[in-house]
């Protein structure tokens, strides 16, 4: 190949240039041929077959869920302390609390995941570890209204989840044991 920036000085240099250029081009073809024969890395989305579907690692920050506690009113661990609603940078969590003291629980708990940026801060600040993000990533909807998760929805998603999901045991993260954080709540 000739370039306008570097001209070969002699006929032999020109020939060497052509041969070198051709060799570099052919080497590239060897690479693509090798990849042609390698196994393919992409898959099909979405698979109807759950066995083939990509499953995110635990701790993936997808859709929301509220963690259950059958002994509490409302069946949820949440104490409607507003810590998550306050810390949320996007202000996408809307809670209405009910009851006083130990009986306090959310009557309404709405998360607008269309506004949410999945920063995980609500999980981080929750004093009772009542909210979590789940690996569920099928969050598409046709209208903005469908993107609002209400309390029943969040409760249903929390089925079978015992603690906020993380890739490591909770002690090795910024999440602290629930008791330690209760003091913080009264401060805030």
């Amino acid at each position: 190949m000739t370039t306008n920036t570097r001209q070969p000085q002699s006929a032999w240099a020109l020939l060497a240039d052509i041969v070198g250029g051709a060799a570099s081009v052919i080497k590239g073809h060897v690479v693509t041929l090798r990849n042609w024969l390698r196994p393919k890395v992409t898959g099909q989305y979405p698979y109807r077959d759950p066995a083939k579907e990509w499953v995110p690692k635990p701790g993936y920050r997808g859709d929301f869920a509220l963690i259950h506690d059958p002994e509490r009113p409302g069946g949820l661990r949440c104490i409607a302390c507003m810590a998550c609603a306050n810390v949320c940078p996007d202000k996408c969590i809307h809670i209405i609390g009910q009851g006083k003291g130990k009986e306090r629980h959310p009557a309404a708990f709405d998360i607008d995941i269309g506004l949410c940026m999945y920063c995980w801060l609500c999980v981080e600040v929750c004093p009772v570890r009542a909210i979590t993000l789940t690996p569920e990533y099928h969050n598409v909807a046709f209208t903005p209204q469908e993107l609002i998760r209400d309390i029943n929805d969040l409760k249903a998603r929390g089925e079978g989840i015992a603690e906020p999901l993380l890739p490591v045991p909770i002690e090795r993260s910024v999440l602290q044991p629930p008791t330690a954080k209760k003091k913080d709540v009264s401060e805030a």
Partner: protein
Amino acid sequence: MPEQEAPQPAAPEAERVPGIEPAFAALAERFGDELVAARKTADGPDFTVAPARLADFVAALRESVLAEPHLFVDACGVERETALEVVYRFSLVSRREIVTVRAHMPKDKPAVASLAVMYPGARWPEREYAEMFGITVTGHPDMRHLLLPEGWVGHPLRKDYVYPLDHPYLAPDPLREDPVRVLGHAPEGEGEES
């Protein structure tokens, strides 16, 4: 962090008290009162000059502190309590030394001498802080708006800037405008923050 040091006081007024360190006596002599403050920090020298002499001062620095090859790092504006400030940073290539040059301006009619001719890299940041803080940059070859559309009213990074919520570029968010309609109930907890 090895280069950890005690935090610098923020208020620029307080820095004038220690005045100019002896290491920069030559510069002080040359610029007199227009070199407001000069001190050494862990990062490198830090100068405060009169805004009109900023370009001259940096030119003088190129004969002393910035004589080595150096990178034009950054220029930005800061709003202090009583004044607007522009901060220029240069970094030596060979070792860790950041040279900071500041200029304070009154808030009502801020103007500063441009470095854009000496450092072409200063063109864009100067345009940026000019539109963001309403600072007039004298001697700049091209003072169009950089990030904001032409004709934008106000200077967004000023503390007293009011966001034009009725601006056509800003679509209203239905959830925030009328949560009752969207959610079916009034949200609690809004307004409890801070």
